[in-house]
């Protein structure tokens, strides 16, 4: 029976791969899922944790919403999120008796970029952005000339993060004024590199995506300064950079990104140890993977929040635009 021989050899192969695979650490491994933005830092933390403290962690990348679904079903220990938890998600956790600790780990800016051949866009105001992205704009606002007087009568082609991402949720909250609401007729991709290529190859494109992707492709894209119309954080258009994002002057498109840790999972020693390690290295790792580290004061407040095992959200169920984390964390610490 040659077929049997063939199968025996395949099974032998399986046995070999088993032998080659390293056994999981005795204490079990930490399971993380959620935002693809936070994924970069979490995976870096997992890599270092394995090397330095011998704890295994697996990191998924199924989006902020997908991550919270698993988190509130009790499937994972830690959820990465590029926006605060929503009321509906918090309710789902509550129904399953899952308490959680909200911990900011870095800042990320949302960059607006145009093609390098685009000479006329000097900056965009929040109102202009709203004109482009509001649900009413669908099928109506299709030319640059409709955005500002004097801009050419050329087609306006929009690109951005897909509707499942926390980036989209935050962007719509900040620009349209209502979370998860925008026109639908723009090119969406969950992969920001696809958006980079899209803007790079289209003279009339305007796209939004994570600042880290702009930082890696500065030579191929033109960044658009954003003017929020409020002079108190800096007058006129502000260009995103590590300083303007962390300092809060790049408004309203700089945002904190988080991990949510299940309080129940912290009963497992390796999970608690892992989160301690994560927070201790968050600023170094976030800079390394392309994000903006938390300022020292916020970093300190975050560590304290975890040490106190303080549950709940400082955001009360939705993205808050234009508030600094330091204010939020400090005001809560005082109460």
């Amino acid at each position: 029976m040659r077929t049997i021989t063939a199968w025996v050899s395949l099974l032998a192969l399986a046995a070999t791969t088993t032998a080659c695979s390293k056994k999981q650490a005795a204490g079990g491994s930490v399971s993380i899922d959620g935002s693809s933005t936070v994924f970069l830092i979490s995976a870096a933390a997992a890599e270092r944790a394995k090397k330095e403290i011998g704890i295994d962690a697996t990191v998924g990348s199924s989006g902020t919403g997908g991550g919270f679904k698993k988190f509130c079903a009790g499937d994972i220990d830690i959820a990465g999120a590029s926006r605060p938890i929503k009321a509906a998600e918090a309710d789902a956790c509550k129904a399953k008796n899952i308490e959680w600790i909200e911990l900011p780990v870095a800042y990320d800016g949302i960059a607006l970029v145009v093609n390098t051949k685009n000479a006329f866009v000097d900056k965009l105001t929040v109102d202009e952005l709203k004109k482009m992205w509001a649900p009413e704009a669908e099928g109506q606002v299709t030319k640059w000339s409709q955005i500002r007087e004097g801009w050419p009568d050329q087609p306006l082609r929009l690109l951005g993060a897909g509707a499942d991402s926390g980036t989209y949720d935050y962007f719509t909250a900040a620009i349209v004024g209502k979370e998860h609401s925008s026109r639908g007729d723009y090119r969406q991709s969950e992969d920001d590199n696809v958006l980079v290529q899209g803007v790079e190859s289209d003279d009339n494109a305007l796209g939004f995506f994570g600042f880290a992707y702009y930082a890696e492709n500065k030579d191929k894209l033109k960044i658009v300064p954003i003017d929020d119309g409020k002079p108190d954080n800096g007058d006129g258009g502000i260009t995103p950079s590590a300083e303007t994002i962390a300092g809060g002057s790049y408004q309203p498109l700089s945002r904190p990104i988080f991990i949510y840790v299940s309080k129940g999972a912290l009963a497992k020693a390796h999970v608690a140890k892992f989160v301690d390690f994560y927070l201790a290295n968050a600023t170094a790792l976030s800079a390394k993977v392309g994000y903006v580290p938390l300022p020292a004061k916020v970093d300190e407040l975050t560590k304290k929040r975890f040490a106190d095992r303080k549950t709940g959200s400082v955001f009360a169920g939705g993205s808050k635009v234009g508030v600094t984390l330091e204010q939020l964390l400090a005001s809560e610490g005082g109460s």
Partner: protein
Amino acid sequence: MRRPIDLTSARPGVFAEKAFVWLCRLGAAIPLTMLAWLLYRVAAAGVHRLSWSFLTDPPSQLDASTAGLGPALLGTLWLIVLTATIALPIGIGAAIYLEEYSRRSKLAGVLELAIANLAGVPSIVYGMLGLGLFVHALAMGETVIAGALTLALLILPIIITSAREALRTVKDGLREAALGLGATRWQCTRQVVLPMALPGILTGAILAIARAIGETAPLVVVGAVAFILYGPDGVDAKYTALPMQIFQWTSNPKRAFLDNAAAGILVLMATLLVINGVAIWLRNRYQSRRS
């Protein structure tokens, strides 16, 4: 009376025929050129990353130049072996039942239609099915076995259809002869029909498995993780797979990781080539034994 064909003088259809041949050549050239172009682009970007340690090392988020796809390669090998072990006996068994035992029944007609439809269902739908059935209802969690069962479902229709085609190529005269000599259905199938049909069955099966290797969408749904530092150590282990790892690298903001993605694509293509090579080798082997 048929007229003898004149092979010497020019015939009216000769231009049309020439045009047709050129059209066929063009048809063959287009996919080959595209494949060559793709291979060139990928090889140019990725070949400098290929090394033994790239195949065995764990991935890295911090340093693209030390990142490897060891866990993903092991995960893919596990998936292939498990998927094949599950799907082949069931698929070939179903084909034998439909062809040899219930050839003209009404049920067979209905099943045939259902299988043909299933073969056209998008792979993400199998992912949803796998998530509901294996991951949640049967509480397997996001494990290799849940991924393999989902992929097995995905390729079953292909295996069944190709195995039936192979069984159908066996002349009825052989079956009748075997049955006429007093063989039972089972003896006839086992000793006459199956050996004749085996090359075709194997080819179909291996092509189906090759398809399963490249699938990403259902694996994302049934929970292959994006970052893991070790390969599976059992059917209930967490896992990742080659296409997942490649996708992860293409979406990393650091451009150095794109080279890793290209190298990963080369590894995936090499794996597919090996599998298709085995398919051809097996087929030739059985074909020569038969004659």
